[in-house]
């Protein structure tokens, strides 16, 4: 596949360098991500793997959503995808309950990514996967 070359690296790299983003920066990036996800949803596609690593920055400094390796087509408003997939820290609760995920999962992940922009690590972050999953299921932030 020949894709756009994004010279600005990914947001995980920038976040790692800066620790956290200023509110203004976070607002700018997340707004572009929301537009991208809403466009993806308009095609009846769910993305399922939203995280800073997958948000690239092009040469003009704008976000580019990349890596549709886990995306799924033909998911309308009421459809669910059954596979368990994604990156542990950003998994939505319904994925952990194996209920199947819908477009709402991407919206949860937008929230998780925004949290990481402002706080420096994803919600409920811990090295212990079991503890992480339990927190995602039931803990307060």
């Amino acid at each position, binding site marked *: *596949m020949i*894709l756009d070359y994004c010279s600005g690296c990914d947001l995980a790299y920038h976040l790692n360098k800066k620790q956290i983003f200023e509110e203004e920066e976070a607002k700018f990036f997340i707004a572009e991500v929301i537009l991208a996800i809403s466009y993806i949803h308009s095609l009846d596609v769910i993305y399922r793997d939203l995280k800073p690593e997958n948000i690239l920055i092009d040469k003009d400094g704008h976000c580019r959503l990349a890596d549709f390796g886990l995306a799924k087509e033909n998911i309308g408003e009421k459809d669910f995808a059954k596979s*368990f997939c994604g990156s542990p820290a950003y998994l939505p609760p319904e994925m952990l309950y194996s209920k199947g995920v819908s477009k709402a999962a991407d919206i949860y992940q937008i929230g998780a990514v925004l949290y990481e922009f402002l706080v420096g690590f994803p919600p409920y972050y811990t090295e212990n996967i079991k503890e992480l999953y339990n927190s995602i299921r039931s803990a307060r932030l």
Partner: protein
Amino acid sequence: MSGNTVTPPDRQGDAPASRALLSSDGKSDNAPSVAAGTEEPKTKFQQDLIRMKEMQGRAELPPDEIEPMRKAQVALLDDGALLGIGFKSFDILEVLGHGAFGKVFKCKLKGKEEEFAMKVLKKAFLYRNKHLKYAITECNILKQADHPYVIKMHYSF
């Protein structure tokens, strides 16, 4: 593609890492031929780069014919391979990253300045791990997608 992505059960597997890369010239399974006397490359990235360059011959299309071909191809949502745009039409410049299912290279259409990213997936590896459908889905979605904040796919082969 990052290493810490959880995959559904049918995507995991311990098939031996395949060297078969996305190439139609049938050379992909050959061991890289390092000429006698040349110094052994130091990093894996450098080795990959050399191997990719060795796999390339000459472009089949003259560069000034590629752009019209591209336009037709975009209109038809067709595969690059059908129009003679393939692996050999590009100069590989550097390795940008690699994941479980393949690698990403920075590349350039021969004779042009514009830079692209080339995502190369190991077809045989995907096939063996029943992961091919995810690659096809990715390709289909990217073909449809046309949005300023979504990565654009120019060719696929």
